[in-house]
């Protein structure tokens, strides 16, 4: 319910984000996030195990194909499975956030047409499901680190929040943009899986970032446009600690991710008032 004395007018050209209103609806955010999480594995046999099974099985198959068959190495002596798993975790967090938020407005169209609440809540809750997945499957990473005898650098642990922030900004920025676009053009539904797949290969998940050194132009481009590259690289150096963290590229990535986020946010705010009419 809205606060005392509110004014309804045609949307203005100037856009501002109503953080106070968002805060007033924090309970809805929590309940929606909880709904998404608790509904996910209802009536499944393996339930929460699926969260772990997916990355672990992907890791097993990819290790066999890319490491054993194609001969791709981590490049610095890190065992390939743990090297790969670190990348997979972050990539999955990224791709499911983008995916969930891009589909979220259309999936909740019936709600949007019947009730008012800050629309941002819907794509924002998509982050929480992906985050829970990340948290659960990270347990396997800890087990693997123990198994392979890795002791993370202190700074490596300390930068995790920063890395997650960069991923979240990037994913949510792209997700918000696609969510609004999806309301109007359902092409997004078909194009997105394809682009996420491409994104997986242009991000150093299955291969080390060092392999890009031979292609300086490509590497610079990746660095500017794809914050995921330096985040995954940063997580590997931080946690598996064979080299030093590249602070400069992380700084660039943080900046780029904020740009993505702001762009997505403002595009979403500019279009959201008409969602109910065209969803």
């Amino acid at each position, binding site marked *: 319910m*809205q606060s005392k004395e509110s004014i309804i007018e*045609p949307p203005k050209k100037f856009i501002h984000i109503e953080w106070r209103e968002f805060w007033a609806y924090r309970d*809805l955010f929590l309940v929606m996030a909880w*709904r998404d999480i*608790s509904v996910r594995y*209802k009536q499944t046999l393996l339930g929460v195990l699926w969260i772990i099974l997916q990355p672990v099985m992907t890791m097993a198959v990819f290790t066999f194909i890319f490491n054993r068959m194609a001969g791709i190495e981590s490049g610095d002596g890190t065992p390939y499975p743990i090297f790969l798993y670190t990348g997979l975790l972050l990539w999955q967090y990224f791709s499911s956030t983008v995916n969930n938020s891009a589909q979220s407005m259309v999936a909740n169209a019936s709600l949007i*047409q019947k*009730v*008012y609440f800050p629309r941002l809540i819907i794509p924002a809750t998509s982050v929480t499901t992906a985050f829970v997945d990340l948290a659960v499957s990270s347990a396997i990473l800890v087990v693997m680190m123990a198994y392979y005898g890795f002791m993370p650098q202190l700074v490596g642990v300390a930068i995790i929040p920063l890395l997650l922030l960069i991923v979240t900004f990037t994913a949510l920025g792209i997700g918000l943009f696609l969510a609004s676009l999806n309301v109007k053009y359902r092409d997004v539904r078909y194009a997105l899986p394809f682009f996420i797949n491409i994104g997986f290969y242009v991000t150093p998940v299955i291969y080390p970032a060092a392999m890009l050194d031979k292609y300086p132009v490509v590497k610079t481009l990746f660095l500017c446009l794809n914050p995921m590259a330096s985040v995954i690289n940063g997580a590997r150096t931080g946690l598996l600690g064979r080299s030093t963290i590249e602070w400069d590229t992380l700084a660039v990535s943080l900046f780029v991710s904020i740009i993505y986020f702001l762009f997505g946010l403002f595009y979403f705010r500019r279009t959201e008032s008409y969602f109910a*009419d065209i969803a």
Partner: protein
Amino acid sequence: MKPIIEIKNIGKKYKIGVHRGYLSLREQLASKTAHAIKSLTRGNKNNDKENDEFWALRDVSFNVNEGETIGIIGRNGAGKSTLLKILSKITPPTTGKIALRGRVASLLEVGTGFHPELTGRENIYLNGTILGMTRAEISKKFDEIVAFSEIEKFLDTPVKRYSSGMYVRLAFAVAAHLEPEILLVDEVLAVGDAEFQKKCLGKMGDVAQEGRTVLFVSHNMGAIRQLCNSGILLTEGKIAALGKTDIVVDAYLQTIATSHPTDGGVIASNDKFGIALKKVDLLNNKGVESPVLQAGAAGFICLVLETTSPQKNLLVSIAVNTLNDTRVCILHTGISDNRGVDLQPPAARLLCHLPKVPFLPGKYRLHIKIAEANGDTIFNVPYATEIAVEGGDFFGTGKLPDVTWAGVALVEHTWQVT
């Protein structure tokens, strides 16, 4: 004191073709290209644009004072729901300004956001927060909500296993415990069975009594008359009438009555006898055409017939059924009149006079049968037409039976102690 809702010059424009359904990018590109080519060859751009626009609401202005209950009526597509959607901030207006001075809750649908996989308990929290309550408020009212919904035993069962009745009861229970200062309600009474509809109406009445401000959209004129102090009639997006409920409702009924199709259609006919039933009209106590009968008042069911030759001793019957096909009664010339009906060509109106309409508010279906004097059927028209009955002062006491009491008929009676 300032009015609790101030609406000034509200207008809402839709672009036809855009507001219904979505476009794929390809279609959009194709139409843009076609448009560009057209404007190149013809040199005019603006003609098409004007035609594609449609004003669902135009220059709507009115004020609502605290504690008023206002009924918004009008035909489908008149802009009633659009107005509620703008007031609930679901869609923005194209022009104008609205000031709302109080907490608003809107109930455009019963059970918005219910998730089939979640249990009743979980859905109470989900639906409650979606409607604008905080978790603390819901926890406080949780027991009341459960008691109202009468589903205690199934609280921890996923709602997908609920019967539709249970589902609707739970949904309404949550909505009924909202405590806004301004409540916007759209035709939610259209769902559920008759009993549920009556329970909703009862609760709505309570809300109005508590001094909240209510804007209520409905096609149920009985409910509007019963609940609202004033009404607004919308016609094609504009305010056509505004004022006392009875006056506005009558104005609305008038617009429907005058727009009855007179297309020479025939409901049923028998060529051998040369008889045709053209239409069935309802007349009010003054003998004027009306879309509804009023309980307790006089009314007529009028069969408009055509015949090519004089007819003697016809048996005519009208069976009145509820929408659930429960027979309420049969009105039969052979029994109540104890004689047949004679008709003269070319046309005749057969009036069935109900001195005191004994039906509870609601909708009824009429089955019409015409037979020869010996009982052989000339024609039999099941579901010939549907009629509506609105509430009225049947007993002359100024009191209406509680809408939550089920039933179909009003029975005249007296009480005495001996």
